[in-house]
């Protein structure tokens, strides 16, 4: 597990000294400085080269610029960039964008208007070495050619490639019926799906997505999000996902990098970062955490679902998810209260044993954020200072967390 190294930006320096050698091959190391009038990007980060890492922040925070630096689209950037040990940029190296093994999804799909959907998909596929030579049928095969000690410019052929064919991209994004159309004849959502498939068809080793849903209305977002979740579930390709949408981050991200005014505020595994008390990172208006779970049981009579999550069971409203489905749960701090005695009757369905990890300030002086651990997973609870005092809450104490509401994402 390398994500502990990527925990905070201060830890990055320590990680550089220790254990960096082993971690390098599974990491993206990015150090960039861009100074424009009125905006400076100053980033020195290690990101895990697997799973979905959300670059989160409001507009103007520099997240898109960071993504463009990683793609090699910002020539003004000075710094150093390496991906799984191969250097893409440093003082004497500059791998041009078309030689970086990336796939890039733009905010507007940016399809070529003079080509059909199929022409767009083939454009990159034909030009990526091995793209057309790769297996065109069946499941992705793992082509392991980890032999070459990466030279600076050899970025296309080395290391593990999850071979991805055009057919798979078309099937995954459900665009088979659109292939002969011109982009002008597609809806916004369809265009964006083609844009994602086009990026996948080049067999990228790193997928960069710049707010792929931001230009779409809510309905189109709902249309594409399931495809992105499939991407997340089915592909081994690491994804850097720029977003300012709390909902998308909660649904898709494994890691999060929070940016503000060109700097990194926090970075680390999603849940660890969301449950930090020293620097409350909020997805949306309220503090809370996101947990992974699996639907375990359906209670037809009460229209409830039991979700196995963090070694415990949580009951939530029946959203129609199938038994066995992997789901994400969002638990807001305001929906979690703390009791020392689980015995008495309560309207709250989910009461779980928890350990208090720490207590921290909240947005109002009357309130307190409590970081709990429920079978290894951090959960935030919000209580008043007075009740904390009355219950005599303190770290390492064993209590019961009463979870009033769980949102299935």
């Amino acid at each position: 597990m390398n994500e502990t190294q990527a925990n905070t930006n201060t830890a990055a320096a320590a990680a550089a000294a220790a254990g960096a050698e082993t971690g390098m091959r599974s990491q993206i190391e990015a150090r960039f400085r861009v100074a424009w009038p009125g905006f400076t990007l100053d980033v020195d980060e290690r990101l895990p080269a697997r799973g979905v890492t959300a670059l989160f922040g409001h507009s103007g925070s520099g997240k898109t610029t960071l993504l463009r630096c990683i793609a090699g689209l910002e020539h003004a950037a000075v710094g150093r960039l390496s991906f799984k040990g191969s250097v893409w940029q440093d003082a004497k190296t500059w791998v041009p964008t078309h030689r970086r093994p990336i796939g890039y999804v733009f905010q507007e799909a940016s399809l070529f208007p003079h080509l059909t959907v199929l022409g767009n998909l083939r454009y990159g596929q034909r030009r990526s070495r091995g793209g057309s030579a790769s297996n065109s049928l069946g499941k992705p095969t793992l082509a392991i050619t980890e032999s070459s000690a990466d030279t600076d410019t050899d970025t296309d052929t080395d290391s593990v490639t999850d071979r991805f064919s055009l057919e798979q991209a078309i099937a995954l994004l459900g665009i088979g019926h659109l292939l002969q159309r011109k982009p002008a004849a597609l809806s916004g959502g369809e265009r964006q799906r083609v844009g994602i498939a086009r990026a996948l068809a080049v067999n990228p080793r790193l997928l960069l997505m710049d707010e792929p849903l931001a230009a779409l209305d809510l309905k189109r977002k709902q249309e594409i999000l399931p495809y992105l979740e499939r991407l997340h579930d089915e592909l081994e390709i690491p994804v850097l996902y720029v977003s300012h949408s709390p909902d998308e981050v909660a649904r898709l991200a494994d890691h999060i990098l929070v940016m503000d005014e060109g700097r990194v505020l926090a970075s680390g595994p999603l849940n660890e970062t969301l449950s930090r008390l020293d620097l409350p990172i909020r997805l949306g208006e309220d503090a809370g955490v996101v947990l992974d779970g699996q639907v375990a049981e359906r209670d037809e009579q009460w229209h409830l679902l039991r979700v196995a999550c963090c070694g415990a069971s949580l009951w939530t409203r029946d959203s129609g998810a199938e038994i066995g489905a992997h789901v994400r749960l969002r638990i807001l701090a305001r929906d979690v209260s703390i009791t020392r005695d689980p015995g008495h009757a309560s309207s709250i369905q989910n009461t779980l044993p928890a350990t208090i990890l720490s207590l921290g300030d909240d947005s109002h002086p009357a309130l307190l954020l409590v970081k709990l651990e429920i079978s290894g997973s951090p959960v935030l609870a919000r209580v008043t200072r007075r009740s904390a005092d009355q219950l005599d809450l303190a770290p390492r104490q064993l209590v019961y967390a009463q979870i009033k509401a769980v949102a299935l994402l």
Partner: protein
Amino acid sequence: MWLTETDLEAIWLTLRLAAVTTLILFVVGTPVAWWLARTRSRWKGPIGAVVALPLVLPPSVLGFYLLVAMGPNGPVGQLTQTLGIGLLPFTFWGLVVASVFYSFPFMVQPVQNAFEGIGDRPLEAAATLRASPLDRFFSVALPLALPGFVTAGILTFAHTVGEFGVVLMIGGNIPGVTRVASVQIYDYVEALEYGNAHRLAAVMLVFSFLVLLALYVWNPGAKKR
């Protein structure tokens, strides 16, 4: 015969001159238009102004400078002489060189506008799809700028057909070599042969109208793409 032998010769020469000039300008003007459209250099302004000069310069001024440059004592003339080509003024190729300069902005500006209209994004998208810079130019920039090229080609061709002052300065009036249609009409009027002038003028009028009609019919279609 409705048009005389010399009329047909003049028209044929005019069309040849316009075609050769347009072809040369496609090759020469496109890189200049690309550079002007993409550069952030501080030379963009001055170079753009130089390219646009023939739009405002009296053709006789341009013709005069070209005549001096290509003449026996001019730098271009001395170069062509050492190369064994001889002197360009009063030859067909002298006219071509002059026309290339004279029609330069009519090629460069529409193409430049078309390239600028594409914006950075499609080229960036192509770069992320493994296309090298040259590849991007041919596979993305050229097809997307195609309407601009059509406009530029038509304008350049028509403008070359219509030139007069530069031709007189550089080419003079040699039948079959430099006597283009516009000069021929001038000759007729000088000789008070108004009937002949009328016929050729009518041909030019119809031709110009058809060219512009093609341009205006094409353009709305181009915008829909």
